[in-house]
C-alpha cells in the first residue's frame, strides 16, 4: 500500500473520534483549507459510521482500516472492512425534501468527495475509495 497514514480501529463507535482526529490532522498536513478539512471530517465519519451500522450490522468487534494518501492534486481516502460485498447500488440515497430520521450520511459523503467507488479487485470485504480534488489552504 502506498498510503501515507493508515489507521486501524475496532468497529466500535467510540473510535470514530480517533478516526476524525486523524482525518483532520492528515488533511491539514496536506495543506487543505479549513472548510475542506471540516467537510472531509464529516464525510469520513459518516462513511465509517455506515460501515459499523450497515456493513457490520452493529457488530463492534470487527475491524475498519482507513488509509489516507495525498497525490499531486487529490486527497484519497480508502475505507476497508471485511463484511460481505457491497456495491454502489446498495448505497440508497433518499430525497432530502421529506423530513425523516436517517439518510443524510450518503448525501454528505457524495457532496464532499468528487469520486466514490468500491475496489472490485479486493478479495473479501470491501474497499471504498473516496477521492477529492484539492483546493490548497493558501489558494482559498
Amino acid at each position, binding site marked *: 500500500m502506498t498510503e501515507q497514514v493508515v489507521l486501524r480501529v475496532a468497529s*466500535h*463507535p*467510540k473510535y*470514530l*473520534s480517533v478516526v*476524525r482526529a486523524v482525518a483532520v490532522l492528515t488533511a491539514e498536513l496536506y495543506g487543505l483549507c479549513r472548510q475542506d478539512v*471540516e467537510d472531509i*471530517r*464529516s464525510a469520513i*465519519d*459518516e462513511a465509517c*459510521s455506515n460501515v*459499523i*451500522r450497515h456493513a457490520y450490522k452493529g457488530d463492534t468487534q470487527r475491524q475498519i482500516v482507513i488509509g489516507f494518501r495525498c497525490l499531486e492534486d487529490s486527497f484519497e481516502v480508502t475505507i476497508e472492512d471485511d463484511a460481505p460485498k457491497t456495491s454502489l447500488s446498495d448505497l440508497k440515497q433518499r430525497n*432530502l*425534501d421529506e*423530513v*425523516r*430520521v*436517517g439518510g*443524510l*450520511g450518503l*448525501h*454528505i459523503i457524495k*457532496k464532499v468527495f468528487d469520486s466514490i467507488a468500491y475496489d472490485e479487485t479486493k478479495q473479501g470485504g470491501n474497499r471504498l475509495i473516496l477521492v477529492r480534488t484539492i483546493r490548497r489552504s493558501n489558494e482559498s
Partner: protein
Amino acid sequence: MKVDLIDNNGVTVVSPSGEIDMYSSPELRKQLLTLIKKKTSTIIIALHDVTYIDSSGIATFVEALKRMMPYKGKLKIAEVPESIMRIFNFSKLDKVFEMYESVDDAIKG
C-alpha cells in the same frame, strides 16, 4: 459529549457540549426522550458548545421534533456555531426547525 439541562418554568434548555456522533448521540436521545415523555412543552437545544455533529445527531433532533408533535410541544434550536450550521443548511433542516441566535431569543420567540 456532556449534556446540561436547565429547567425554566416548563421551558427546558438542553446544552450538549463536545462532539455529537454515533457514539454519543444515543445519550442525547435518551435525555430528550425523557423530557418528551414528561410532555415538556418547550425544549430549547443550545448548540453553542458543540464542536461537531454528525447525521445521527441531526436525526436525533428530527425524531424529537416528530415525537413532540402529538402534544404540540415546541422544539427550538439556538446558538448554532457556524461550522455546524452547514449541516443544517445542507440537510434543509434550517427550514424545518425553529432556529434562534440566542437562548433568550428562543425563549421569547
